[in-house]
């Protein structure tokens, strides 16, 4: 298979182009320096700030692979951050590691319940995923407001700050968390049969049922996974800003996550999925955000700039579009294609 036919060829190319254009505007863009045992630099920032999106895109990938979608991830981020911050602010000593860990556990448990709720609505009640998760997308911000009594909760907790702003092994903790989540997802889906069964259900629910696959359990699992990923992302976000803001946390992140999944080559219709592709997609989107700042695009028009880049990427990934473009500049292909490329002969006749 030629390199440029690879599923991730165009996303990688776009990412490279984006990074290179940054170099043009900021010559020291690629510089990564070690200071006090911590890595610093624009690339590190992209990874650090992109960690929540990577996490959310990871969960979204599995949900989309089953043929579903999860719009509630942003709200789950808000809920998770809100509960953690409220519990920490209630601590007698905000720097108590045990207290902070308990708060984190509680926040993740609540995220898990949110996933169970989504999963039950989709898998058991049979509600269309876009509607089922829309419920929590809307209600979730309200729940977060309830938790924080409608206020922005500020915390001053050293241990909590570590999640979003700390360093370990010279790398930002948030990046390590995201990397661990990616590794976990890969092991869960590819070292067990989970990935195969998810792809089967996403591609053809009817045929999968007749093959004995119970889609219900799988659906429940992917929505729970997506919500827990969102919960972790919510912790990173709120830890980073040392507060819980029920309106700002994870606002519109579901759209960026869906975009990342699609850029990564997973079809919205379900079926085959690529975790690596989604991570790449999330990094591209984060790089785009950074690029907007570094080449000085006015804040009002950054969304427009993002949209243009995404459209270009999607068009390049579309086989139909490439055929139209290349067909225009090339003569019609010769009558006999090369034998290597010719598909195996088929002897079937239409029924």
């Amino acid at each position, binding site marked *: 298979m030629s390199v440029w036919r690879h599923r991730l060829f165009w996303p990688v190319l776009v990412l490279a182009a984006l990074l290179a254009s940054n170099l043009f505007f900021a010559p020291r863009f690629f510089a990564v320096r070690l200071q006090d045992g911590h890595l610093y630099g624009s690339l590190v920032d992209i990874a650090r700030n992109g960690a929540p999106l990577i996490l959310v895109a990871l969960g979204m990938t599995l949900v989309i692979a089953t043929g579903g979608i999860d719009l509630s991830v942003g709200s789950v981020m808000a809920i998770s951050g809100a509960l953690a911050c409220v519990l920490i602010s209630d601590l007698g000593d905000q720097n108590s590691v045990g207290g902070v860990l308990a708060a984190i556990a509680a926040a993740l448990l609540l995220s898990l319940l949110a996933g169970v709720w989504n999963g039950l609505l989709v898998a058991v009640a049979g509600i269309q995923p876009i509607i089922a998760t829309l419920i929590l997308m809307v209600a979730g911000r309200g729940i977060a407001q309830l938790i924080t009594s409608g206020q922005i909760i500020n915390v001053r907790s050293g241990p909590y700050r570590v999640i979003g702003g700390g360093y370990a092994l010279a790398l930002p903790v948030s990046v390590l968390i995201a990397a661990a989540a990616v590794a976990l997802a890969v092991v869960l889906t590819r070292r067990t049969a989970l990935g195969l069964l998810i792809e089967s259900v996403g591609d053809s629910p009817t045929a999968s049922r007749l*093959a004995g696959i119970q889609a219900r359990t799988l659906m429940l699992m992917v929505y729970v996974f997506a919500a827990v990923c969102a919960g972790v992302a919510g912790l990173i976000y709120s830890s980073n800003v040392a507060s819980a803001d029920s309106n700002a946390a994870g606002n519109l992140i579901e759209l960026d996550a869906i975009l990342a999944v699609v850029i990564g080559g997973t079809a919205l219709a379900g079926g085959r999925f690529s975790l690596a592709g989604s991570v790449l997609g999330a990094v591209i989107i984060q790089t785009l955000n950074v690029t907007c700042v570094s080449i000085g695009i006015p804040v009002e028009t950054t969304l427009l700039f993002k949209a243009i880049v995404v459209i270009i990427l999607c068009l390049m990934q579309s086989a139909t579009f490439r055929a139209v473009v290349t067909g225009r500049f090339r003569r019609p292909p010769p009558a006999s294609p090369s034998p290597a490329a010719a598909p195996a002969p088929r002897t079937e006749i239409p029924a």
Partner: protein
Amino acid sequence: MAEPSPVLVMTGIRKTFPGVVALDGVDFRLFPGEVHALMGENGAGKSTLIKVLTGVYGVDEGEVLLEGRPVRFAGPLQAQQAGVSTVYQEVNLCPNLSVAENIFIGREPRRAGLIRWAQMRRAASALLRRLGLEVDASAPLSTYSLAIQQMVAIARAVDVSAKVLVLDEPTSSLDASEAAQLFTVVRRLQADGVAVLFVTHFLDQVYEIADRMTVLRNGRLIGEYRTAELSQRDLVTTMIGRELADLAGIEPGRPDAQAPRGEPVMRAQALGRDGAIAPFDLSIHPGEVIGLAGLLGSGRTELARLLFGADRADRGALQVDGRRVHLRSPRSAMARGVAFSSENRRTEGVIGDLTVRENIVLALQAARGWARPVPRRTQDELVGRYLTALRIQPADPEMPVRNLSGGNQQKVLLARWLITSPRLLIVDEPTRGIDVGAKAEIQRLVAELSGGGMAVIYISAELEEVLRLSHKIEVLRDRKLVAELDNDATVNADRIMQTIAGGAAS
């Protein structure tokens, strides 16, 4: 009786697809006020003829005359405007819209660009009354049964244009009383002078409603008959293309030994599902092959789906190894050693995106659960063995299964179930669309498996196949199991065909 001039005449129609002649010099005529059945086996060319008539396909040769004028429609819409409407097997309406909206969709009465709802409702009500239907035109279509929806589709078709109405398998999803209801409507239209072209697999219905019929076989016209002058038995002979008596001569060898007896693997008592299959009794023993014979739509698949838990039974009892079971899902049937390979291999069989290897291990993996993956080495070994044994081409385990031909996809499906080592294997039309070599291969495999003690239910429209493999033959007609024949010296294709046709022997 002096015949009036026909409303529709098709002469010398020839239509080829790459590698196949679908229609070869077919003539067809249709008179006003008649119900005319178009008969033939699968692949005889019935649907191609209809698609030629309605402009879905162009013709290579031949002529279509509507009311004496040559026509060549560019598509169904144009055909409809000229007076030829078609109602298909699956209702092509919008269930969430009202009955009236469905009837007038695309041609709503308007004034100044705005739809005149009241007028639309009145017109729809009047139309439905004329057809003798008690239907509230403002209610959503989905509140009514499939039969009524079918009739709303007919009402829409005749209101658009009322010269020729084509009904393509309109009754295949209706039960007996609903079909009768539909026929009342058809008779009313007939009285109004509409010419009705009726395609069905239900022989009894043909004799109930049709005045005349045209029989096609392998793309050729066999003849046009008055229903009253051709017995049901002769009709089947004509469709199959052999004298029933002749079939006995070419009968292949039957299984050598009588089926082993003893405790049945599975036993159904008065098992049934409303609208799918009437209650039936069936026992199958280890090492026994039971053939299901019957025309398409006779309930063969529906019966099998109940035994596999793909549909739930409404009534009756099912025992596996003498213990009563309730099959809630395919999974629960699989846990008891039942496997089922569907006839719809594209929609209910293979998973197109996945590779050959993944498709083959899928059922085994589903049975083991996600947490216990089949080790890759075991997968490669199993897949390699069946790629060779079933001669799956191309023998590339990592190729997406959608790139394989239909016959090879079928073999992948068989492999999927065989590696689960089932005790009862149900195969639905496993050899349809498969070349002769592969067909013999699959038949040999089935005989071998039953020799090894596996119980097999073999569903096929080809009687030779059923006769060659089965110890017992269950005959189905009109969604009922009508006879059980031991495959001994007295059974031949003739007798089965008579039973299928509803003749004396059973």
